[in-house]
C-alpha cells in the first residue's frame, strides 16, 4: 500500500518536474518581474473567485421558484457604483506605477556593462563579442557581469528573448535596439526568436551558456584566435578611406571622430542628439541626413558597401577612439 502511494507521489513529482509552473529565474531582474506577476495573479484570482462565488451564491439563493415569478426590483445606489469604479481605478494606478517604474529601472543598463553585438537574420542569430569571437545561435556569458546586447537585423523583424532572464526586445532592420541582463546563476537557458519572421521562425532558437568567470575566460581564450571588433573596425576604417577626411591632416574638412561617442552633438537643425550607434550608422548610410553645423555635406554614402556586421565593427572602432591623441598617434 505504502509502495503504491509512494509510486503515486513519485509519478506526481515526475509530472510536476515535467510541468514546472515557473520558468527559471536567472537574472538580477527576474525576481522583480516575478513579484509583479504574482501580484497580478493574486488580483486576478481574487476578482475571479469573487465574481464566480457571488454568481454561484445568487444562482442558488435567487433561483426561480415558480414560472410566473419575477425579480424583486432594486434601485441602484450611487455609492455602490462609485465604489466599484474607484477601487479598480486605484488598483490600476498602483499597478501602473509599480510596473512602469520597474520597467524603467530594469531597462537601464549599468555603465559597466560589457557589450555584445547581435545580428538577426532569417533564421539564425549571429553574435560577436568585443574581443572578437563570433557565435551562431549560442551566447556565452560570464555569471555576475552585466551584459548589454546591441542588436540589429539584416532582413525582417526578429525578437531576442531569453525567458530565464525575463528580457525581450524586437530586433529591427535599419535600427539598433538593446537589452541588458546580469545573470545570477550558471547554467544553460533557452534563447528564442519571439517575433514571427517567416518559415523557420520556430527554429531560430539557441542556448545561452552562463559560465563562471574562469570558465568564461577559458572559453574566450580557446577557439581560433580572432582580432577584437575594434581592430576589425580599424581595418575597415582605413580600407574605406574614412581617414582621408576624418583626420586632422586630411585636406577635406570633416569632424574628428575621436571621443564623440556618447557625447551630445549639435545638429544644423538646432536639435541636439547624443552620438550613439544609431547616429553613427545613419551618418555612414545616410550622410545627407546628418548635418553638422560648419561642415559641408561631402561625405559619400556607404550603403551597399558596408554590411551590418562591418557596420558594427566600425562602430566598435569609433567607440574605441577615446581621445584625440589616440587617433593622432596612428
Amino acid at each position, binding site marked *: 500500500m505504502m509502495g503504491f502511494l509512494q509510486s503515486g507521489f513519485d509519478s506526481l513529482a515526475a509530472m510536476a518536474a515535467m510541468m514546472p509552473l515557473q520558468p527559471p529565474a536567472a537574472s538580477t531582474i527576474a525576481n522583480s518581474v516575478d513579484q509583479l506577476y504574482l501580484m497580478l495573479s493574486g488580483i486576478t484570482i481574487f476578482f475571479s473567485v469573487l465574481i464566480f462565488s457571488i454568481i454561484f451564491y445568487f444562482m442558488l439563493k435567487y433561483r426561480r421558484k415558480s414560472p410566473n415569478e419575477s425579480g424583486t426590483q432594486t434601485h441602484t445606489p450611487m455609492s455602490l457604483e462609485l465604489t466599484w469604479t474607484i477601487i479598480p481605478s486605484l488598483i490600476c494606478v498602483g499597478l501602473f506605477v509599480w510596473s512602469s517604474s520597474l520597467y524603467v529601472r530594469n*531597462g537601464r543598463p549599468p555603465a559597466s556593462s560589457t557589450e555584445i553585438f547581435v545580428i538577426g537574420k532569417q533564421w539564425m542569430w549571429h553574435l560577436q563579442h568585443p574581443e572578437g569571437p563570433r557565435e551562431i545561435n549560442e551566447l556565452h556569458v560570464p555569471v555576475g557581469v552585466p551584459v548589454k546586447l546591441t542588436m540589429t537585423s539584416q532582413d525582417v523583424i526578429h525578437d531576442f528573448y531569453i525567458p530565464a532572464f525575463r528580457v525581450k526586445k524586437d530586433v529591427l532592420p535599419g535600427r539598433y535596439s538593446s537589452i541588458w541582463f546580469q545573470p545570477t546563476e550558471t547554467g544553460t537557458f533557452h534563447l528564442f526568436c519571439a517575433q514571427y519572421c517567416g518559415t523557420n521562425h520556430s527554429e531560430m532558437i539557441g542556448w545561452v551558456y552562463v559560465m563562471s568567470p574562469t570558465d568564461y575566460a577559458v572559453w574566450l581564450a580557446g577557439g581560433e584566435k580572432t582580432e577584437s571588433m575594434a581592430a576589425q573596425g580599424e581595418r575597415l576604417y582605413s580600407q574605406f578611406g574614412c581617414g582621408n577626411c576624418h583626420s586632422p591632416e586630411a585636406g577635406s574638412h570633416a569632424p574628428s571622430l575621436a571621443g564623440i561617442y556618447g557625447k551630445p552633438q549639435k545638429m544644423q*537643425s538646432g*536639435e541636439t542628439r*547624443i552620438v550613439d550607434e544609431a547616429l553613427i550608422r545613419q551618418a555612414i548610410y545616410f550622410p545627407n541626413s546628418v548635418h553638422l553645423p560648419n561642415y559641408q555635406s561631402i561625405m559619400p554614402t556607404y550603403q551597399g558597401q558596408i554590411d551590418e556586421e562591418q557596420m558594427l565593427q566600425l562602430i566598435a572602432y569609433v567607440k574605441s577612439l577615446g581621445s584625440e591623441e589616440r587617433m593622432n598617434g596612428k
Partner: protein
Amino acid sequence: MSNHSEQSGPVGHVVPVSTYIIVFISLMAGTALTTGVAYIDLGRWNTVVALTIAVTKMVLVVLFFMHVKYATGLTRVVILAGFFWLGIMITLSCSDELTRTWEIVPQGWNMIVPLVSRLF
C-alpha cells in the same frame, strides 16, 4: 417622433447667390495668397501660413458650400469627431516616432521645442 428636422423649412436653407459668390472669391483669393506666400522666405513659418490658409479655406467650404452653418449640432459633432480622431492618430503615433531619440531621462523640456518645430 424621435427624429428632428436638421434644417428649418421643408426645402432646407437657401443660401443667397451673393454669399456663394463672396465665398468663391475668398477661396480664389486664398489660393492666390497661399501660392504667392510660398515665394517669400518666411523660414519655418511658410508651412504655418500655408496650413492656416488651407484650414480657413476648408472652414469656408464646410460652412457655406456644405451648409454646416445652418445645420444642427449633431452634424457638427460628427464632423468634429472625424477631425478629433485624426488628431488622436497623428498625436499618439508622433508620441512614439518623435521621441525615440530621447534618452531614458529626458534632458529637460527644452527638448520639446526643436521636436515640435520639426513638424513644420
